[in-house]
């Protein structure tokens, strides 16, 4: 049997150090991130080796695990530096690596005693497949997003491995790892970090005569939102609830971790049921529960583009001072009098007064600019790495 995790883990995506600290602040139990190479998000900030070391220290000080993605399908020439990197990950005490390539799993096994988690990129869909990966040293499988909750429970019980499932975020429409559109149409290897997201484009559907049957984003999936099903995830014994989105904003990390942490705690009887969350305020393509209950059909396609956020990230708290102020790093312009909300890890959206915006030298200003720091009145409980948001003017 898989090791029993009484309380399933909330696993957050962190594309950089700020997002790591935000994820920890909002209650993630584990984070996944990428080093400078071997991951699937070349365009993300990712972590240098020094930052990886710092990330492990910070996360472990807060009781949070760190998983490092090594989930690209590598060529032999990419593999030369892998043994040294794997040894480095072991040295800095990474909790697991996420792989999708059997050759990478072999290197990890031969050069470290690191835990191996099998990426969703390998499209593990059945118990036999989990057993295959167990023979290659895996401790956990991240199931393909085509797997139902009932099937996931069977895989966990039948394979003896821990099971991780996505609960939120963008989804490949293809079986993960089975899409090479970028490789052939853009010359960028989608399975080595260069995905150009061709599936999100608008296409026409034509017959041989050129007749157009209509246009739409045929290959663009709606985003996964499994919040409603969290009690069933808990009942099924799923070990880890994974949130997609290492390239998304710190506001996204805060909002999703907060929502799923509360839902998980409520489902485990640690909190009374939560009635409010901010997930609809995030940019999304429309939400779907994908194949968690029944196989996803045409209703799961984001045929028309819809990606508008209700709120933007205004900034995050850098520090507080002795004068009941908080120093806020702004990602977005903020005008005097504009309504801001501080997302509290406890789940409330706390209003922040912007009647007085002060710069760091103590001067009153009418507007705070992006990429600058301003002082704002500190609501009770505000502390570093809490995130502020503001509603679109429209």
């Amino acid at each position: 049997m898989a090791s029993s995790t009484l309380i399933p883990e909330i696993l957050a995506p962190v594309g950089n150090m700020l997002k790591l600290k935000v994820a920890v602040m909002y209650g993630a139990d584990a984070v996944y991130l990428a080093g400078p190479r071997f991951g699937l998000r070349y365009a993300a900030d990712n972590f240098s080796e020094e930052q990886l070391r710092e990330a492990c220290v910070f996360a472990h000080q807060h009781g949070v695990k760190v998983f490092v993605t090594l989930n690209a399908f590598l060529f032999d020439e990419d593999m030369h530096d892998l043994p040294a990197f794997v040894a480095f990950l072991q040295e800095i005490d990474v909790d697991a690596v996420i792989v999708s390539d059997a050759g990478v799993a072999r290197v990890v096994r031969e050069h470290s005693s690191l835990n191996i988690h099998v990426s969703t990129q390998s499209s593990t869909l059945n118990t036999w497949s989990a057993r295959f990966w167990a023979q290659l040293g895996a401790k956990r499988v991240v199931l393909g997003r085509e797997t139902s909750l009932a099937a996931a429970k069977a895989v966990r019980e039948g394979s003896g491995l821990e099971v991780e499932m996505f609960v939120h975020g963008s989804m490949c429409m293809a079986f993960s790892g089975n899409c090479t559109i970028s490789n052939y149409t853009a010359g960028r290897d989608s399975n080595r970090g260069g995905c150009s997201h061709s599936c999100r484009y608008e296409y026409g559907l034509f017959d041989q005569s050129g007749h157009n049957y209509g246009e739409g984003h045929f290959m663009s999936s709606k985003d996964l939102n499994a919040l409603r099903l969290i009690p069933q995830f808990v009942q099924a014994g799923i070990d880890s609830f994974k949130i997609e989105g290492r390239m998304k904003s710190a506001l996204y990390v805060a909002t999703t971790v907060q929502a799923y942490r509360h839902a998980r705690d409520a489902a485990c009887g640690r909190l009374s049921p939560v009635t409010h969350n901010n997930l609809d305020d995030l940019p999304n393509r429309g939400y779907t529960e994908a194949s968690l209950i029944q196989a996803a059909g045409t209703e799961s396609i984001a045929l028309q583009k819809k990606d508008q956020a209700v709120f933007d990230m205004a900034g995050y708290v850098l520090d507080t001072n002795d004068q009941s102020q908080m120093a806020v790093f702004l990602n977005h312009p903020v005008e005097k009098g504009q309504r801001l909300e501080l997302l509290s890890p406890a789940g409330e959206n706390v209003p922040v007064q912007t009647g007085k915006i002060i710069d760091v030298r103590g001067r009153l200003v009418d507007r705070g600019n992006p990429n600058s720091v301003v002082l704002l009145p500190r609501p009770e409980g505000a502390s570093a790495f809490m995130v502020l948001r503001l509603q679109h003017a429209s």
Partner: protein
Amino acid sequence: MRRSYNVHSIDLWHSIKNLALGHELLLEHRELGRLGCLDSKQLSELAIENRAHGGRNVLVWDILASDAQIQRADTLLHELDLSIIDAIRVQDPGVAMYVSQSWPLPLQLVLETGNHNIGAILSWIDVLGDAVERIILSNELPISWTLQYRDQIAVEVELAVLSPILIFYSPRPLIGTRVPEPDQPLFWGEPGQRRLPVKQNQHGTFLFYEKALFLLPHWQDIRAARVDVNRYDLRLWHSDALVDTLIAWHQEKDTESSRRVRDQLTKRTTQGFFKSNRTDKQFAKLKRHDSVPEGLRPAGLVVDTRKKSYTLINLQEAIRVGQTLVFVNSIGETTHHQIRWIEDLDRQRHSVLGSGLAIIDHVSRAPTGTNVYMPVDDETFE
């Protein structure tokens, strides 16, 4: 080199019979093959006919499968006469495990998705053991790599030499019901631009590259790489004329006969990554290098600045007045700056500040986001 031919429908079989009979047939049952249209009876009849002419029959089970689908397939396999089947071809590692432990049939492993390093290829063979009779290598592997690998691979190796290139496989029905005759050839694309063939069936939606993989002119390189089997996949296009030119090509194997085959294809052709694969070249430019310059250690990050007034640093390390810090901005410009004064957020002056936000005198060419370093051997506190 031996040949194998995909056969997913009776219609295709009638078209290519003269070419394929007596060779290895990759038979696609509608329940197991991605594009399979054959029912059990058709598949059996076809296999018996091919066997009678000295051919081999391979049952293709290349859909990616849930436990429930494996269970249904188990029932189907018990109903089929497997004595006329010589091997089973699979892609899903779970299906491979199930077959290897449940049926005494050799396995052909489709390693066309990923598995671009020898360690990965050998790992599959290690786990599945003696059951593996052949691996089908990815057409993203240049032939020079296949040549390098060949000595280490103890089983047969197959390559597609004339084939559509599947670039997307989804279990979801993405065309839905918007086309009255969904079996006709359909394409996704923009008007006047590339048209990608797309098919939807009971197993999902399949998208193919606009060009056909066409490696016939390279047959000598393929033979030199000791590829055992060449695969011909005519499922998306077939005609009597194409079959005739292929028959001729197998006899002549010269440039002219190869050109005649290509002329019969209704689409443009590509050699794909046969010669080289540099699909990392384009996106390497996207990479942001954030490594610490030699001899320095991180001290913080600039989070605000006002020209001729101040620079605000979110500190990682203690700093002191008189110390020289190194600022490296996002385009790599480096500025050495000796600190003249330090304030905290309460505008109190300090000679040393250990953590949090530090306001210092303005640093040129160090906008927000600039990394701040200090020498490795710099001791703020002595």
